């Protein structure tokens, strides 16, 4: 069957709440309103106000509260209405959650999930379009995942909730309504997507495309176009950003000898930069062309639609990078 990403997350949340009484949800509008993007639909009705809580619009406060609850073995799932608002709470995420296990020398784990839509959406301008993948994934103590498909979404949210560490789940608003096939296995209650492992979405031998979240879709589209030209692209869906599965990327590059990274975040100190640097360190001799990065433009997000489209990677941008990596030999 096909299932929209929204429903896949919802199912994952539901199953994990059923499985473990200590799992609870909190955030703005997650309960009675059923989520600003309806991701938590039906859960307040099913689990009641003890376990699904509408918070005041006080990100720093409710994030701190959730972290404290996690110190005492509850398993909070914090929804940021969008990750943009997590900036108000980022000190709590980093200093009270990510670093706590280490500072306590293992005494106080923080089993908490921070989830919500991340990155650009449609027509919401500069303050509501930021991608936080690079920031969060730089921090030891956090795990960071970023699903693309419905299977990713369900399997990763479930793994995140079961994980005894703080996990940041970077979703994408524009994917919520997109349907993807769900295998029989993925429909089951025991379906987990392991954190820390990338997935080869499409095998290929000529060039490797690496991406996460919505950009995976662009890569798949690009790969299809390339196939028409006889170019076999391998598409890697990172799924996890931290701990990054460099191994899968290296293996692929050793096969294809060419790499293009694609992301919706800003270029400087981005995910692509990190992958590029690691590949250079580990597989320099396998590279037949410079690694190409496709990123958001280095600008705040504008409102106007044509400008907005120009600000984030589109399929032609990926194709152009691929062409450079294919035809420009060392």
């Amino acid at each position, binding site marked *: 069957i096909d299932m929209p990403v929204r429903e896949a997350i919802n199912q994952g949340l539901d199953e994990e709440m059923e499985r473990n009484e200590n799992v609870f949800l909190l955030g703005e*509008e997650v309960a009675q309103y059923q989520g600003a993007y309806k991701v938590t639909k039906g859960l307040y009705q099913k689990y009641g106000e003890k376990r699904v809580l509408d918070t005041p619009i006080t990100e720093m406060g409710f994030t701190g509260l959730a972290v404290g609850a996690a110190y005492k073995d509850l398993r909070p799932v914090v929804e940021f209405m969008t990750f943009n608002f997590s900036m108000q709470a980022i000190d709590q995420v980093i200093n009270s959650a990510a670093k706590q296990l280490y500072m306590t020398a293992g005494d106080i784990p923080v089993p908490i999930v921070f989830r919500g839509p991340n990155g650009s959406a449609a027509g919401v301008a*500069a*303050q509501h379009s930021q991608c936080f993948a690079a920031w969060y994934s730089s921090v030891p103590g956090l795990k960071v995942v970023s699903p693309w498909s419905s299977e990713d979404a369900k399997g990763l949210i479930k793994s995140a909730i079961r994980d005894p560490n703080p996990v940041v789940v970077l979703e994408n608003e524009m994917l919520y309504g997109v349907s993807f096939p769900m295998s029989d296995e993925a429909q089951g209650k025991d379906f987990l997507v392991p954190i820390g492992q990338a997935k080869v979405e499409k095998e290929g031998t000529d060039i490797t495309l690496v991406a996460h979240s919505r950009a995976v879709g662009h890569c798949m589209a690009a790969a299809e176009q390339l196939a028409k030209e006889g170019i076999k692209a391998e598409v890697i869906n990172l799924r996890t950003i931290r701990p990054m599965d460099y191994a899968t990327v290296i293996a692929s590059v050793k096969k294809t000898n060419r790499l293009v990274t694609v992301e919706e975040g800003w270029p400087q100190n981005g995910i692509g930069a990190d992958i590029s640097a690691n590949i250079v360190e580990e597989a320099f001799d396998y590279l037949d062309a410079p690694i190409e990065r496709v990123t958001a433009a280095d600008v705040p997000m504008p*409102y*106007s*639609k044509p*400008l907005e489209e120009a600000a984030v990677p589109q399929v*032609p941008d990926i194709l152009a990078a691929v062409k450079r990596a294919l035809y420009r030999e060392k």
Partner: protein
Amino acid sequence: SGSITVPFSREYDTHKLPFEMPKEAVTNKEELLGYFKLMYTMRRMEITCDTEYKARAIRGFCHLYDGQEAVAMGVEAAFDQKDSWITSYRCHCISLLRGGTVESIFAELLGYSEGVSHGKGGSMHMYSKKHNFYGGQGIVGAQVPVGVGLSFAAKYATPPGEKTPVAIAMYGDGAANQGQIWEGANMASLWKLPMIFCIENNQYGMGTSKERSSSNNKYYTMGNHIPGVRMDGMNVLMVREGMKAAKEWCSTGNGPIYVESDTYRYHGHSMSDPGTTYRNRDEIASMRTARDPIEYVKNLLVQHNLADPQELKNIEKDIRKEVQDALKAAKNGSIPKFEELYKDIYIGGEDNSKIVYPAYIRMPDRAKSIGSIYERGVSGM
């Protein structure tokens, strides 16, 4: 036609207020007609946004102000343009009072160059520095300490002993518990800044009623030791008189004040919220019939024989046409040039006036990047 005296049907609620609030307002035909016209323009503008949003001409978030018009109108009537103003994303109508026009606001919403923010900001981001209007903040609560900074600058620039212009930051009942509001209030109180904390209590923050978000929903008391006042935010005269008193208090070195306007939004939170799951249609309907801020002014005009209903009808007709014309004009706007994508990231010159660009601005397709990675810095500096 001379002035009339309008007694308030509701009293100001006060909190640690060391002065008396008025029980009535003095006004006249000209003023009232002015308020009516502006508020009716706001109303038509917002309703037109609704239509255009549904027609998919407006994108993204779109928060409408209909129902709340008397608050902005009352503030503007009490202030002069030296006073600084900042508000949330629900900013179309404040923009209209502070530098925007119906046409330039529509143009912004349509994403055109002629827009208040050249199509780069959209619904939540309208400004006019020349008119001392600083936005248009998309982040709940953030405008409040920033507003305190506006009041800080006003005091900084005023010679000691002189009256200072004031600053006002508007925020909602949902925003009211943001900690940074208190942080700003504490500094405003410590440093005696001319700052008005203006809560637009429209009873809901998205789908959450004030009782569910706020352990204390007498928002005018949230300053604790800071004086506060609450008023009927559907009554432009009451808002005006309240704001006058607040401004007088703040501008004479007494420090900040909290002012709560009890108001209502007719629309949902934003265009994607039908606004009917967490409140019932009766509630909305009864607000419209009993407390509509525009009807209130119309009634005053008619009851005091300052205008006859037909005159008002004609004005409404004219305004409807003006707004439609503005929309039409806005629709003739131009799509922002590609250069706008990377313009206004930095500015140059110590006097903030030069248009400059970083030497290298990366684009998704690196080959199409602007400038050159072999150059450095920000050019034009």
